[in-house]
């Protein structure tokens, strides 16, 4: 099997600066995709060191919690669920956006998807295991986690067990969904590595690429097989994402506690997951665009289009929130009315209204006002959404957990005791939550040290080039014959079609 094309030529687009005008060239795509692998920017090690230190601090906090008990995390017998459950829901939720966005764009054959899919899928890949890990601090006795997976201990009546099945199945799907498009890229990346470079990382990359893409020749049957497989997994992953987060909501919805036992929760959780997931994809894209100089490929208009998706999910979530509170408040049952009152005007009004403004209203305003509807505006909106939706998860978890359910009425009518429990944040859950947050960019930085950050083959294919491998007998490339300076017309048609590209980040306003 012949080697895939290495450096695709040193061609430059005459008179055209990357990302400013006209479509990017093939060699620019390959260079940009491999830049994080081949080069070590000055900021890389300090950033990794800081993020790593934050992660270590989180691990220390967890060790303290294991030694001293869940009490050091602010848990008590009147606040039995709190920040870790909110973290579990929030972190697993954000992982859905990347995979679902990528799957939808693939199924609908959106040509502008190409520069986004790798980063979106990588975001899903790293956030899901981090989210799953929150089950460990959430359990007071982490050494019993194995009982969750050991069949003799299975409790088929427990939503937690089905959560485990659903999330682990989804993790497998995410891995497969990330791996399949990587096969041709690995073959291409193998040829782009300098053969004279023999340091440890270069050897590791070479081995990795050989393992992942060793059999790839780029022939038409191979492409057909790969496309069918990716298409199948893309179709599978959307209902799986929906089912996974709805199953996660069962842990709440199937309880008998007011505020948790909500039939709307499965839909509510799925929409929340997609909402925050898209927001995190926007943040990941913006960060990678800036840090790895992908301005020629990831355009602000990409972000604005995702911003519209953000608005759709945000408005839906806002409506579902209204529906939930309206029905629970209107029903007038003592326990439901009590927690709704506490959330809206009682002890939890600050976090709830913070969510309402930051993740409910502001993103809609940003996308509605033409001057604000820019790449930068979408990034700001996404940042607000990610944080405020985490706060909203706290509002979902903590108020019902602290609501008294013991019947000890002062009133003869049989009301509740009326004494609410209290959850106090301590440094332990804060450190663990911040550590998990830091682990996401850390994992992405490390992942992109080994994996091309752009889907090279997909971008070339969408450009109509079909040139990833120099295979004897392989069909001749179409379009510009696959030379290094060939413009990626398909990829860039989105960028160049309507109006001249704008580097100020205000394209969305048009």
């Amino acid at each position, binding site marked *: 099997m012949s080697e895939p094309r290495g450096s695709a030529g040193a061609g430059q687009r005459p008179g055209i600066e990357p990302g400013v005008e006209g479509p990017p060239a093939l060699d620019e795509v390959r260079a940009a995709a491999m830049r994080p692998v081949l080069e070590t920017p000055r900021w890389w090690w300090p950033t990794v060191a800081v993020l790593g230190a934050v992660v270590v601090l989180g691990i220390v906090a967890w060790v303290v919690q294991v030694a001293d008990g869940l009490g050091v995390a602010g848990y008590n017998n009147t606040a039995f669920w709190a920040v870790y459950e909110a973290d579990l829901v929030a972190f697993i939720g954000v992982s859905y956006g990347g995979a679902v966005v990528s799957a939808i764009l693939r199924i609908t054959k959106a040509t502008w998807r190409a520069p986004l899919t790798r980063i979106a899928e990588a975001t899903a890949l790293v956030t899901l295991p981090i989210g799953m890990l929150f089950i460990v601090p959430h359990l007071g006795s982490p050494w019993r986690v194995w009982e969750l997976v050991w069949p003799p201990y299975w409790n088929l009546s427990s939503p937690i067990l089905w959560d485990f099945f659903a999330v682990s199945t989804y993790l497998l*799907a995410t891995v497969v969904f990330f791996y399949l498009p990587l096969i041709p890229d690995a073959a291409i990346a193998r040829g782009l590595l300098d053969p004279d470079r023999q340091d440890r990382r270069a050897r590791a990359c070479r081995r990795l690429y050989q393992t992942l893409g060793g059999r790839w020749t780029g022939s038409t049957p191979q492409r057909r097989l790969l496309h069918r497989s990716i298409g199948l997994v893309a179709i599978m992953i959307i209902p799986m994402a929906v089912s996974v987060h709805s199953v996660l909501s069962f842990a709440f919805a199937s309880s008998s506690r007011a505020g948790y036992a909500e039939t709307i929760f499965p839909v509510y959780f799925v929409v929340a997951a997609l909402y925050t997931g898209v927001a995190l994809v926007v943040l990941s894209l913006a960060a990678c665009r800036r840090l790895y100089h992908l301005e020629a490929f990831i355009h602000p208009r990409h972000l604005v289009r995702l911003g519209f998706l953000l608005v759709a999910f945000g408005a839906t979530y806002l409506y579902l929130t209204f529906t939930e509170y309206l029905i629970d408040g209107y029903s007038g049952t003592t*326990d439901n009315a009590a927690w709704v009152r506490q959330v809206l005007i009682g002890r939890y009004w600050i976090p709830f209204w913070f969510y309402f403004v930051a993740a409910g209203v502001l993103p809609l305003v940003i996308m509605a006002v033409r001057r604000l509807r820019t790449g930068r505006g979408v990034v700001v909106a996404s940042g607000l959404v990610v944080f405020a939706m985490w706060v909203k998860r706290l509002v979902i978890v903590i108020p019902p957990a602290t609501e008294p359910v013991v019947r000890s009425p002062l009133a003869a009518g049989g009301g509740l005791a009326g004494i609410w429990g209290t959850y106090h944040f301590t440094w332990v859950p804060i450190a663990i939550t911040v550590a998990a947050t830091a682990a996401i960019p850390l994992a992405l930085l490390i992942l992109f040290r080994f994996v091309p950050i752009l889907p090279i083959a997909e971008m070339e294919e969408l450009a109509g080039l079909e040139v990833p491998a120099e295979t004897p007998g392989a069909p001749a490339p179409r379009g510009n014959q696959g030379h290094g300076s060939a413009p990626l017309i398909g990829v860039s048609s989105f960028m160049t079609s309507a109006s001249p590209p704008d580097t100020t980040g205000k394209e969305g306003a048009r």
Partner: protein
Amino acid sequence: MSGSISWKSVLRSGLPALVAAIVVVLGASSTAWAATGPGLRLVARRAPHDHGAVELVATLQMPASVAPSKPASLAGAEVSFSVHLSEFSGAPLLALGTATTNGAGVATLAYRPTWTGHQALVATAANAAGTPLASATASFAATDATHAFAGTVQAVRPDGVIGRWVAGVLLAIVAMLWVTLIAVLVRVNLGLGLVGKRTSIP
């Protein structure tokens, strides 16, 4: 049936003396009295109009030497009622509610036991500034209990109601997803080699 006095809280309040009484009523009762100081007497008795409920009556009392001169001081004190939980180590207190004393120093709380058997109750009286004045404990054997949760909870969960075949079907779906995903991986990896070889030969 037994009664006892929580001396620590009283001593912490800095008050000079204590008179406390605990009377426990559910069938039989017992009472404990202290000699001096403001004290609290806690009584648990069946609620007259609510079957299954227990009426907790805490009576704040002043010593005979000072009571006549300060009759108004008995009113307005807040009494907190709690019960010791038996499910957790250390028998932590579960707050039941609060009530304010009337002019006679009596505060009443209706309590509906959520489990049967021995229950240890604690009542603590505090003045308007929150300073504990006195406390008392009592215990009784509850023979009638209402479920702790507000709603009606079925003891039997879905696998008992719907049947284990539902869980079996769901497990089969999960297994099918795993098999499909792994089959995709295998098919791609094997297939790439096969079709790659075929087309790589001119």
